[in-house]
């Protein structure tokens, strides 16, 4: 195991690669597409909040390809895939009584989404 040394701290922090994966993969969705977040309730790690599950939104943008945290946390692989900013109307998330002109954007992996 390598141990982080004091002299290396600055470089390690600056050069952090992050979760983006530099690989070309076809994107299932594009900006403007209507999608619905899946209703999944895994016991393991996920980054799909309960409040968005089963909710309909619109793809705002494609952020590119990233490591998939659900499998990465379980040690079962990076499973790289496109992540999208998805725009949800507050009334879709919180009901008709929610305020108009209010939107929540979530960054969601392709595995969390189905076409609507």
């Amino acid at each position, binding site marked *: 195991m390598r141990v*982080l040394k004091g002299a290396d701290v600055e470089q390690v922090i600056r050069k952090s690669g992050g979760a983006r994966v530099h690989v070309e993969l076809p994107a299932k969705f594009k900006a403007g597409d209507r999608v619905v977040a899946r209703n999944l309730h895994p016991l*393991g790690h996920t980054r799909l909040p*309960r*409040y968005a599950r089963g909710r309909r939104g619109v793809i705002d943008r494609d952020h590119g390809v990233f490591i998939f945290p659900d499998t990465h946390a379980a040690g079962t692989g990076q499973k790289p895939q496109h992540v999208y900013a998805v725009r949800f109307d507050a009334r879709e998330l919180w009901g008709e009584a929610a305020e108009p002109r209010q939107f929540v954007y979530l960054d969601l992996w392709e595995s969390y989404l189905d076409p609507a």
Partner: protein
Amino acid sequence: MNGAHDLGGMHGFGPVDPEPDEPVFHHDWERRVFALNLASGFLGQWNIDMSRYAREQMPAAEYLATTYYEHWLFGLEHLLVKKGLVKPEEIEARVAELRRQRVGRPAAGS
């Protein structure tokens, strides 16, 4: 997992109540646990997704009743033990030893 950390939309937590000009760390142990997390992560025995998942496994009632860096402490211990880098008995023994040193006598609970 459907844990207590998944807070979006919940009611009942009261006002946001920001502290004006707050310091980066409120206690020295927060500084240390922050740095220990980053340095331990560098060992390459787990990834950031595993570290988030570790914190999520704090029992729900405890998660909601404790502070942010206490969550980090929990997660770090969880991972160190899970990966076999530290044994739970070692931690408890060291805690007891430090408590004895502090109080100057065998600890009778604190």
